[in-house]
């Protein structure tokens, strides 16, 4: 700004001085003088988000995480990460006089004494389950549409790491209340660490600060749960979204959509309004779940005591597949040469998840090895057009769901009055057979859908009638309601939103392929 400039004397003069956009302009000017935000800022406001419902799945995960952070901060004000044993005296009479850790005591207090404490606890727990679940569904969308292909392999990798961290932090989080079920979970985690050949006992002792249960694990889990892992997760989410902005969204094929553009709604105001509204909706749904759908009633389980256990011990949703794997595994322990390798633990609880996550991480490379496709891809595949990939994904999902279901063998056997042995053997066979069936059926469906264009359309009936001469003729029946030639609303040609880059470029607006296209029939 020029030094000679005089201060405005009247309001009118001040307003004129600010220009057409008033104080907003002034704020932008001040910021732009210092950090240069105007050009990039406008580009960001113009960023196009494709309008497809499946792009919303990642948003569910993101906003669940926001809810997790907010409710988690609330909980840290009241939770005491301590395994010191105390005696309970409080409003919940069934536990009166019982010995428990301070961690359990404070969680009981959050549930019964802190205002809105139970609500926040349950919302936090629900948000954790939805966080992991939505990551998985989001990942499935990315996988089946081929959005992980070049140039987005790195973001795929970040996403898988986020999934692993989400599961890990979920497990650590539900261990913190130190109730009977979660304490048993920690016991199992310790034994899984023990099962690792060569270093297992050292890892377990270093993590627990000595032999199980020790007095360090809750305190360590706490700081990992509220600081270490959330920081890493936040950093990775930042990288995930940063890459998304830099590489721009993928999009499905359609009118005016090419490998070299993005069609949809701009960041501001359409997408901003929709996504902010959606964030509030996700928050609302999680909150209503937390208020009306009881989850993890730790006062019913009781405090953790190493000698006690209850029936139907199942871990949280996202650990169920590992528990199921532990159940279907036969008892194949190796012993020899003075050593023991507990394969019955090491294989299902360490090797199996390691294998699953590594296959996921390596998938872009695996697929490239077969397709030899090194091109950049911004247009998405329809799952049916890539039968082999879709079949592989279906097999993976079938495998995970089968081992997940296997984590309730005892409950199923009890509920359906079946032999536990029969249920167990059913799952041992199903773990192998179901993924194979799923992949073959999926592949077949994909191939058939490719071969029959418009297979989903209703066919008009053929009416076979007999003439007076005894001749049979087939006549196409009259169109039924809904069969008639239907002109859906034509997909409009997208409008260019960027500022034109050359002088007089206004004329180029909206000239990408003119005319409308019949989208169906």
């Amino acid at each position, binding site marked *: 700004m020029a030094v000679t400039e005089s201060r405005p004397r009247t309001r009118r003069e001040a307003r004129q001085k600010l220009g057409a956009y008033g104080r907003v302009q002034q704020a932008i000017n001040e910021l732009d003088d210092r950090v240069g935000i105007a050009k990039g800022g406008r580009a960001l406001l113009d960023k196009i988000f494709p309008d497809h419902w499946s792009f919303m799945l990642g948003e569910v995960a993101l906003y669940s995480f926001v809810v997790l952070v907010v409710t988690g901060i609330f909980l840290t004000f009241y939770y005491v990460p301590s395994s010191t044993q105390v005696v309970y005296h409080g409003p919940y009479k069934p536990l009166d006089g019982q010995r428990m850790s301070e961690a359990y005591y404070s969680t009981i207090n959050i549930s019964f004494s802190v205002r809105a404490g*139970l609500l926040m606890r349950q919302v936090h727990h629900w948000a954790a389950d939805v966080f992991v679940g939505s990551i998985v569904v989001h990942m499935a969308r990315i996988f089946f549409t081929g959005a992980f292909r070049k140039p987005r392999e790195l973001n795929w990798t970040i996403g898988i790491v986020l999934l692993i961290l989400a599961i890990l932090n979920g497990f650590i989080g539900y261990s913190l209340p130190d109730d009977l079920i979660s304490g048993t979970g920690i016991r199992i985690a310790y034994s899984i660490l023990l099962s690792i050949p060569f270093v297992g006992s050292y890892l377990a002792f270093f993590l627990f600060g000595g032999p199980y249960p020790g007095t360090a694990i809750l305190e360590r889990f706490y700081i990992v749960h509220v600081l270490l892992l959330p920081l890493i997760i936040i950093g990775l989410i930042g990288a995930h979204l940063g890459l998304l902005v830099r590489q721009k969204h993928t999009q499905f094929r359609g009118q005016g959509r090419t490998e070299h553009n993005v069609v949809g709604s701009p960041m501001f105001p359409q997408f901003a309004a929709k996504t902010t509204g959606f964030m509030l909706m996700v928050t609302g749904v999680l909150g209503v779940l937390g208020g009306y759908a009881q989850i993890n009633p730790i006062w019913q389980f009781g405090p953790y005591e190493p000698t006690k256990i209850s029936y139907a011990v199942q871990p949280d949703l996202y650990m169920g597949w590992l528990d199921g794997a532990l159940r279907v595994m036969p008892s194949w322990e190796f012993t020899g040469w003075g050593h*023991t390798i507990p394969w019955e633990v090491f294989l299902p609880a360490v090797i199996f998840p390691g294998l699953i996550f590594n296959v996921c991480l390596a998938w872009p490379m695996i697929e490239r090895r077969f397709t030899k496709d090194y091109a950049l891809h911004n247009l998405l595949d329809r799952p049916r057009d890539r039968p082999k990939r879709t079949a592989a994904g279906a097999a993976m999902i079938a495998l995970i769901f089968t081992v997940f279901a296997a984590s309730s063998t005892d409950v199923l056997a009890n509920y359906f009055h079946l032999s536990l042995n029969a249920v167990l053997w059913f799952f041992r066979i199903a773990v192998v057979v179901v993924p194979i069936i799923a992949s073959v059926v999926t592949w077949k469906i994909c191939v058939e859908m490719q071969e029959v264009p418009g297979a989903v359309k209703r066919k008009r009936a053929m009416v076979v009638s007999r003439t007076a001469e005894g001749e049979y003729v087939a006549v196409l029946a009259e169109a039924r309601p809904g069969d008639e030639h239907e002109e859906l609303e034509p997909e409009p040609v997208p409008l260019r939103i960027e500022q034109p880059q050359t002088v007089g470029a206004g004329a180029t607006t909206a000239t990408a392929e003119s005319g409308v296209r019949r989208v169906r029939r």
Partner: protein
Amino acid sequence: MSELDEARIPGEVDAARTDNGHGAGTADGHGAGVPLLPAVPADDPHLADAATDPRRVEGIIGLCFLAGIAGVAAFGGAFVEGANTQVLAGTLFGGLFFLGFGLAAWGKYLMPRGPFVEERHPLESSARDRQAMAAAIVERTGIVVKRRKLLGAMLATGLGIFGVVAAFPLLRSLGPKPGSSLFKTNWKKGSLLVDLYGKPVHRTDMQVGGLLTVFPQGKENTLTAQAVDQAVLIRVQSTTLVTMKGRGDWAPDGYVCYSKVCTHLGCPVGLYEQLLELLVCPCHQSMFNVRDGAFPVFGPAPRPLPQLPVYFDSNGFLRAREGFDQPVGPGFWERTTQGNGRASAT
């Protein structure tokens, strides 16, 4: 910067740089200043609302916002009054949901419907730029390494040693070495069997079919001791139960005692199927035959539960003849084959 200057469109004013800021004022249907969408008439269908009946949508959104306002306002009152969880959840999160629903509907139905398009500018740099970056790294590193090889090696050595000493003692200091602690319990020769409250077990205390969790006297109160020492004492119908060859006097009067820590993952083997005389672990349904040396008859547990030999002292109280003959609980690398299977028990 000259490219950028050329790129300016007619009527655009460099408002951030002009001294007086008066230049912005080319009205072209979008108000003054930089046109948002140049050369698009105001009646372009892309700019129309997405809703066919905007008035009705406005009404619905208005109702949503009203519900949202009522909800969050009611939450304030409910919180002050200390209302129950359901009321708090319904007001706060119901309110937030309706506000969000209204806002999302606003964005979807009452804003320019588009669709809009933006170009995807290629991310890759020119071959020359790529080479320039590689050159900078390779050649400049080359200068450092070639000219000052010794210094570079020393620096690398120092950092490497720092890495090792930082990682190793750090990890090492998190806990003690396992040593022999995984092989030991507090059960010793002559340990008195007591329950959770420190009460010793007399030979007349238990009925046939009864079950009690026992600890060595003096250790029943610490979690760490409980976690490894816990043993399950069962009385079965027998005078002298021989669970396995070589365990002739381990279970007098049908009092048989096994480690309660499952050999699969360390859960307490807390369920007893009395009729079948099976100990069941509820975690992964391993079942151990009490009469047969607690051999696993079902499930993923690989080994029998170690048996504690017990006897009656002169007062008729149960005591341990000696400690467990093998480590209790799940397997680990250092565990020897001792105590595995029937053969070793002979």
